[in-house]
């Protein structure tokens, strides 16, 4: 991955080969719980909490995996956060976007995850500007835990919801 480029204000400022500033995450149980509370709210009727290896600690401990592991949704969310921290305002959350990520290895509590990304393409089609980022998350042993691409629509003029025409 290349060196981090300054955050672009507009689509025109983005260059293929630009590197995103790296981010790191030391996985804390509290972070997993916070995300679990968002995605699997603790309501009496929610069937997604009991037996969930991301938040049900006893269940996870007794499984073949031996303990909690991070929900892939959370890893994807953090890759998206890295992207939107760098991209022009409103990018990726304005629709017409795509995220495609594989998880070759699990993420566990106390792992230190490094997130990185690089611009691999820019396209303008149908009046929409899109940027493709190759993204990667690796653990402290250098093993890939998430690898894939984010294709983000970048709103024109820094405004949201002006891409639909």
């Amino acid at each position: 991955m290349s060196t981090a480029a300054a955050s672009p204000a507009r689509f025109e400022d983005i260059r293929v080969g630009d590197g995103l500033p790296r981010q790191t995450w030391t996985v804390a149980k509290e972070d997993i719980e916070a995300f679990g509370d968002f995605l699997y709210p603790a309501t009496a009727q929610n069937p997604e909490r009991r037996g969930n290896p991301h938040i049900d600690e006893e269940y996870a401990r007794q499984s073949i995996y031996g303990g909690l592991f991070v929900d892939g949704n959370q890893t994807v969310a953090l890759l998206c956060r890295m992207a939107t921290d760098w991209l022009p305002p409103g990018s990726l959350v304005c629709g017409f976007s795509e995220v495609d990520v594989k998880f070759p290895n699990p993420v566990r509590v106390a792992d230190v995850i490094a997130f990185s990304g690089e611009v691999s393409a820019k396209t303008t089609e149908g009046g929409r500007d899109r940027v493709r980022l190759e993204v990667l998350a690796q653990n402290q042993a250098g093993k890939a835990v998430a690898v894939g691409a984010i294709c983000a629509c970048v709103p024109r003029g820094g405004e949201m919801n002006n891409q639909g025409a």
Partner: protein
Amino acid sequence: MSEHLPVYDWEYATAGDEASPVTVEITADKILKYAAALRDANPALKAMPGRPLGVPPIMVRVYAPLRRRELVAEKGARYPDHPTPAVHWRCQVLDELHVGERLTSVTRVSDKYVRNGRHFLAWQVEARRGADVVARFEYVNLWDRGRPEDRNR
């Protein structure tokens, strides 16, 4: 009693199995909770007068819920009693999405396959606005119990 039901294991699962549709509203509250849980400082995810909130890709899991357990129950089976780790996550958002709109989605088993001796199930959820598909979510899980060496991966 659910313990007498067959387990929805890889053999039992059939590509094309489908859950009944569900309709979910995209709410500002849920987007704000997402930003808080992730400590995401993206201004597009902060409530500001006169400016619509953005809808992050992960929100597909909320407005187009995966509902695997519901599908399994509708197929007369019970959910496996072991973790089913995700190996692939894909989402396409095909339109602008807006807070306050209600989308109807259907979950289906889109594929089942074996790779390197392991068994996988692929799920797909399509979210529609009326007749139009506005988002598509695909998720692949390892459906086996896992192997001893997985403890150290």
